[in-house]
């Protein structure tokens, strides 16, 4: 039996651990805790789905950590996380493509910086980088705009599906006893008689230990517990997703040589077969400012035109903007407060997706420092996620699957070739979507070039039907019959 709730009262008895925030980091922590069957764990999320904040709108890169600050916590966790996530992805069917990155130098100053970056990579235990001259660079990337002087090749950099990653963690956590409470915003946190009392939009939730993985709101929760370690300044990143016709134009992740402002604008393939251009980096104070702007999009297109001129001839299939949790610090802000039974996981930047499995192990160790005895551990039964990646067979390409169930050959979303079977599975899954956006992140339905012109109404009809079937009863989805 699994417990995923969106409404109604929360259980009165205290959990052993409550994790606030079901982004990629919180979900990874919940999954790590689920290995300990004696623990009662709650994963608490303000929004109606997992991965709805910073985790859903990033650059979808599985980093090697070659350019992290050597010796920092981030450097270590990204390095370990890359290894763990690569293995987890293979086990769970999360699409990953090891396309490699090219840091392209467009002027002499940038060219001169490349050897320094190569040496930094070595200090970050990344030993396979190589400097490329213009001839080899253009042989690798024939569509690159004119004027590039050379590049640093980082073969280990990969692209990954961020949505499937978060969902895999959450699914595995929920299947192994973690309670997921959605639409449950934490408004106040206090500690009384050694127990955390979280006042939420759905009543009080109690827990002996608390993990703050609240992303953009981690500073607010931290202050409620009496700490003033950091302030989250939302840094907006706008991104353009180009049509699948653009995919043959680029083979690697094309990075600029980093500046003090961030990693700059990249052009990268996605595992879904598109090309990404972005992000911008705008420091804001509104934690809800997830809109794109005309200026931002124009600036991105200008930079994209230089890197990959032919990209601009293709259609844009999606525009989105995400907010990264910048703190003004160079490193993650992860701290245990043993006396309070509390761990803060703050300031997780764009590398958080890569670092997530290592962050989870790190947090587990910190929880032990707070006196938590997690009890015996077990290996979790692997989850098998639906494949959204173009480098692996999709259901419509699998004769065996269609022969067993014709609904995998019945395409509903034509641009992305999403079958009825996949939509049905997503709606019946242990962590079902609560919106069409949630369904899109699980299946890619409506994510293609027509944005629903052909299939939008049909997908909505299936979604409404699935929701009616799924929610007959209460807000709790209870799935029986699975180990």
């Amino acid at each position: 039996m699994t417990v995923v709730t969106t409404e109604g009262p929360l259980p009165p008895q205290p959990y052993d651990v409550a994790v606030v925030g079901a982004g990629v980091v919180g979900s990874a922590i919940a999954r790590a805790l689920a290995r300990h069957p004696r623990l009662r764990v709650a994963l608490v999320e303000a929004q109606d789905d997992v991965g709805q904040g910073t985790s859903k709108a990033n650059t979808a890169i599985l980093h090697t950590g070659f350019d992290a600050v050597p010796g920092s916590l981030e450097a270590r966790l990204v390095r370990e996380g890359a290894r763990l996530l690569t293995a987890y992805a293979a086990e769970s069917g999360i699409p990953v493509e090891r396309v490699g990155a090219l840091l392209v130098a467009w002027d002499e100053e940038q060219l001169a910086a490349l050897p320094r970056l190569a040496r930094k990579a070595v200090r970050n235990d990344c030993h396979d980088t190589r400097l490329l001259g213009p001839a080899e660079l253009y042989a690798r990337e024939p569509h690159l705009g004119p004027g590039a002087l050379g590049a640093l090749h980082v073969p280990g950099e990969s692209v990954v599906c961020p949505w499937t990653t978060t969902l895999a963690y959450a699914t595995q956590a929920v299947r192994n006893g973690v309670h997921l409470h959605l639409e449950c915003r934490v408004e106040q946190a206090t500690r009384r008689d050694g127990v955390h009392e979280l006042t939420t939009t759905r009543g009080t939730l109690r827990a002996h230990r608390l993990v703050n993985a609240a992303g953009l709101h981690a500073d607010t929760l931290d202050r409620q517990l009496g700490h003033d370690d950091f302030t989250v300044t939302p840094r907006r990143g706008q991104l353009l997703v180009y049509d699948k016709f653009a995919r043959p134009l680029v083979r690697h992740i094309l990075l600029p040589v980093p500046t003090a402002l961030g990693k700059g604008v990249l052009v990268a393939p996605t595992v879904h077969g598109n090309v990404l251009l972005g992000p911008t980096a705008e420091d804001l104070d509104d934690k809800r400012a997830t809109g794109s702007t005309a200026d931002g999009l124009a600036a991105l297109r200008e930079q994209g035109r230089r890197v990959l001129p032919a990209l601009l001839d293709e259609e844009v299939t999606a525009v989105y903007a995400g907010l990264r949790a910048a703190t003004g610090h160079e490193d993650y802000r992860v701290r245990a407060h043993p006396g309070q039974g509390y761990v803060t996981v703050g300031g997780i930047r764009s590398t958080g997706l890569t670092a997530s499995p290592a962050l989870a192990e790190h947090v587990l160790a910190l929880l032990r420092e707070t006196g938590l005895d997690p009890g015996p551990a077990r290996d979790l039964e692997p989850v098998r996620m639906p494949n959204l990646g173009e480098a692996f067979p999709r259901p419509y390409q699998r004769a065996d699957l269609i022969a067993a169930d014709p609904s995998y050959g019945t395409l509903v979303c034509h641009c992305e070739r999403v079958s009825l079977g996949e939509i049905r599975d997503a709606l019946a899954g242990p962590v079902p979507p609560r919106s069409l956006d949630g369904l899109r992140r699980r299946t890619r339905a409506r994510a293609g070039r027509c944005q629903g012109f052909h299939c939008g109404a049909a997908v909505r009809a299936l979604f409404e039907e699935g929701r009616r079937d799924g929610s007959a009863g209460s807000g709790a989805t209870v799935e029986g019959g699975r180990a």
Partner: protein
Amino acid sequence: MTAVRQVDVLVVGAGPAGLTAAATLAARGAGRVEVLERERTPGGVPRTCAHGGFGSWRRPLTGPRLARELADAAVRAGAAVRTGVTALDWAGPLDLATVGPQGPEILRARAVVLATGARERPRAARLVPGTRPAGVYTTGELQQAVHLYRQPIGTRAVIVGAEDVSYAAADTVRRAGAEVVALVTDLPAHRTAPARALDTRLRRGVPLLTGTVVAELLGHGRLSGVRIRHHDGRAAVLPCDTVVFTGDFVPEQELARLGGLTLDPRTRGPAVDGALRTSRPGVFAAGNLLHAVERAATAAREGTLAAAAVTAALAAAGAGAAAGSGAAWPEGVPLILDPPLRWITPSRVTPADTLPYTLRTASRLTRPLLEITQDDRVLHRERVRGAAAGRSLTLTARWAHRVDAKGGPVRVTAR
């Protein structure tokens, strides 16, 4: 290994062009004619246009009725209309890899007619900034939502565009019980029949905001409004929970591009000659894939012509051979346009062509004189009926036989 099945003619897309081509071919004894349609029902876009204006003045029809009649006619003539089957990609010169509930299958044809139609460009392609709330539609999605699925669409809708399809979207919004807040267009005037525009403005009280763009979508979760900006700099927010992006059609060109067909950069559909031959031997194209978009009747007329061209090509190739396999596949000479002419289909010409040309102009032309030249040699001059921007002109092909097949491009100028 996926099974390969031989047919004579494969038509991709069961809209007015594809169904008419299939019906004509089957009636002429072209052998096994198969139409692949990825949707569950045949008919194409008219299927969801629950209004009149289809058929002829003598026999007016609604869109769904036309869709049914075209499908019935194709089946009666002996064509196989297979719905729920998607043509995924090319698997050989005239082979298409398909999938459906019965599984994968490769279909090998002697000739292929692409009739995959067109779609509207959605919000993202138009680079409209803002949040990503629910309540953002194209007309295509709106009409399916309201007419096929009876879905509620919100209470207050802004329509982006002011052409025929925009007014049809406004009607659909009203039929769904919602209020139309305004039609917004960046053009200086509407592009529909004056009576229709007047009726909407006066009787329905729906304002038409010209010279205005939607600058930003607002709202989290559900759309709460759109920020509009006039060319003169004035800006305002229109509160609404629904916005419909209408018009701005582009050809559904996936198979054409996957097949490496030469595209016409003006229409973004495959370049064809007067026999609707694409650059790939044995592959023809018809309907709104060529020109996004014209009326269903134009698409159907091209379907008939494609059928004639396919019949001729199959006869020339001989029994059992693929179209284009015997004689050289003619390349034709490209047609180039001077402004304000925007696009022309067919976009290539061979001396044997007989099909009339469809032209679009970027600004209004009143009884223009069209001049056709090749290498500074005048082939034809003709005064044609005028057309507004967004409406088509028709040009005969009576001059095509004067074209030098080995000469330079043919230029069309409007005076």
